[in-house]
């Protein structure tokens, strides 16, 4: 194993800010949705405070509006968040032994975004990096929920709608340096995009399952189909 430079607090601020940019408008939209569903402020903020899983919170409140049962909502939440099992398993070997004590917090703050950013970081992960990165994402989500509930749609609609691209751009920006390094990464990314498109658009598999199936299937193919690791630094 190569010795990598350690991530510091500064890295976390730089890497966390685009997540904040992406999270604020989403969290505000969630606050607005809660208000329209006649939830009180404390319950609305509690969703973000305790659950902290964007997509499933939207689904839950929409199901609540539709009159779904509590069991149904909880089951749907479990399904939508199953991919996190894979994320935690994947990032776990990258945490050093002195990071173990913070695992309860690191695990709580693991989202699509914090997982992607931290996993593809080209430096050794540290407690302060993980906790700062996740803390920024978490607090922006909680504060955004509060602001959305209290202020409603204060952002001009064009600004608000345009910010919908932010998290996708974030994912692209994390990937591009990796694509430059290795052809295998490109093949993995494109294949999973294709498999996921097929599953959601043609086979109509629910979103929660399709992403899990895609990750398992394509990662497995990556293991059994050997490719020359040209240009990769492994």
């Amino acid at each position, binding site marked *: 194993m190569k010795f990598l430079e350690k991530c510091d607090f500064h890295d976390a601020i730089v*890497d966390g800010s*685009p997540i904040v*940019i992406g999270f604020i408008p989403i969290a505000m939209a969630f606050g607005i949705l809660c208000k329209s569903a006649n939830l009180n402020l404390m*319950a609305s903020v*509690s969703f973000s405070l*305790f*659950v902290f*899983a964007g997509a*499933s919170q939207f689904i*839950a409140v929409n199901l609540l509006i539709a009159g779904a049962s*509590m069991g149904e*909502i909880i089951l749907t*939440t*479990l399904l939508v968040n*199953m991919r996190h*099992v*894979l*994320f*935690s*398993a994947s990032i*776990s*070997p990258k945490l050093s*032994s002195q990071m173990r004590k913070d695992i309860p917090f690191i*695990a*709580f703050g*693991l989202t*699509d975004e914090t997982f992607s*950013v931290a*996993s593809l970081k080209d430096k050794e992960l540290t407690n302060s990096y993980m906790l700062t990165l996740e803390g920024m994402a978490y607090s922006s989500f909680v504060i955004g929920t509060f602001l959305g509930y209290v202020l409603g749609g204060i952002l001009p609609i*064009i600004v608000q*709608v*345009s910010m*919908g*691209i*932010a998290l*996708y*751009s*974030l*994912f*692209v*920006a994390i*990937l*591009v*340096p*990796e694509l430059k390094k290795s052809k295998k*990464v490109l093949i*993995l*990314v494109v*294949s*999973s*995009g*294709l498999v996921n*498109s097929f599953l959601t*658009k043609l086979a109509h598999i629910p979103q929660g399952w399709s*992403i899990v199936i895609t*990750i398992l299937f394509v*990662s*497995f193919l*990556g*293991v059994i189909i050997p490719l020359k690791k040209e240009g990769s630094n492994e």
Partner: protein
Amino acid sequence: MSKIYVLILGMFIVTYLPRLLPFFLVSGKKLPRKLEEFLRYIPYTALGALIIPGFIDAIPGHKIVAVVGIIIAFMLSFIRNSIVIPVLGSIGICMLLLSLGL
């Protein structure tokens, strides 16, 4: 406790446990090489699936704007090794296109 907080508690449990338990299953052990390799591919396959096809609906009702936004993000991250610049650049281009009525 009102019903909504019971729901939030339930959602907390089914969200937190999938995030937490794998750390204890995978940690500290020497994993088989194939499994280690499999776990190493997950960020890439996850990102592929998180971006495609979802990005196409990033700007509801404006697929072309979303596509241009992603292309700009791609180009900017190719030129500059940064996350903030592609994110802000793509938001900017989407705002521009939307205000032009696209």
